């Protein structure tokens, strides 16, 4: 019982368990080269979200793109039934690609993982909340 209680009490980052997690943890691209946002709580309620995390950066070389791409690819495979929308290539030959995954729910929260690459510009977003779909989010942002 104590072990269960302890494991409940240890704070776990919401996006942990994803293959792309090291990017959010700053283990792939150094912090000096990224734009990172972490927003949690009431200020997200208008977007029907409770947590928003994003990382964007300009890749210095092909290896950085490949590494992030491969991690996203692993998450895509892991949650292949949950692909929300994609314009995405597994071969990495395209210069532009987007992928949006709706991850399995955690409690009452819907979870989304979004990836976009425009040449060397890479953006990855993780979101949690009562938001039902990314179409709704698109409407809310307008």
């Amino acid at each position, binding site marked *: 019982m*104590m072990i269960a*209680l302890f494991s409940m*009490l240890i*704070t776990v980052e919401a996006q942990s368990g994803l293959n792309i997690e090291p990017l959010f943890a700053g283990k792939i691209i150094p*912090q*000096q*080269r*990224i*734009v*990172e*946002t*972490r*927003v*949690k*709580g*009431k*200020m997200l309620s208008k*977007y029907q979200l409770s947590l*928003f995390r*994003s990382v*964007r950066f300009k890749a210095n070389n092909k290896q950085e793109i490949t590494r992030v791409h491969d991690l996203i690819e692993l998450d895509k495979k892991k949650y292949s039934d949950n692909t929300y929308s994609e*314009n995405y290539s597994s071969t990495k030959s*395209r*210069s*532009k690609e*987007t992928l*949006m995954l709706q991850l399995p729910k955690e409690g009452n929260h819907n979870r989304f993982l*979004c990836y*976009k690459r*425009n040449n060397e510009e890479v*953006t990855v*977003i993780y979101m949690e909340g009562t938001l039902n779909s*990314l179409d709704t*989010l*698109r409407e809310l*942002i307008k």
Partner: protein
Amino acid sequence: MTTEEFQQQAEGIRLQLISVAQKYLSSTDEAEDIAQDVMIKLWLMRNRLTLPIVGFASMVTRNLCIDCLRRKHPTIDIATLPDEEDLSDDGEQIEQMLKVIDTLPSAQRTILRMHHLQGMKTKEIAMVLGSTEVAVRKTLSRARSVVRKRLIALFAAASLLIGISTMTIRYLNVESSDECVAYIYGKKYTDQQTVLAEMKHTMGEMTEDNAQNEIEQQLNDLFSN
């Protein structure tokens, strides 16, 4: 019965009582404890006793052995467990220790009290109980050891509870707290306007209509082959 009469009787029946107790209990130490216990009970009621006391003492020994066997399957009343607050200062810690002493078998409890609270020497205690100084020291040592172990267990449980409570409070605070931070090329921004603007920009970029991009992409793919 006078004190002198009691002392004479005590010396004579002690071994007999140990023998009675050994029939019920496998451990010689436990049998000695029970005999000690009986002697204390008899000492406390010596004014009401009449000679000879051996029959009565044997009956008391049997009853205490049965009690001892019952105690081998103890239960704990949750309501009697200490709150963490009970251990918050010295006075309460002493009270806690006295509570632990009260849970000892009566021989251990009485000898501990005689020695530490009433300031009696082990020799004096041995005389009063019709026992030997060595046996009294042994009982005293066992009693201290039990008290020490139980107090350590209590304090450990209390520390664990405090630790868990602290972690829970911290966890709940972390969970419920708002966070608003952006790191832009290593520089930290916490003002809501900058962070939300950055967030909205990133969100918008992600959810923007990709029709134009898709056409460009297809043209690129077509001409790159």
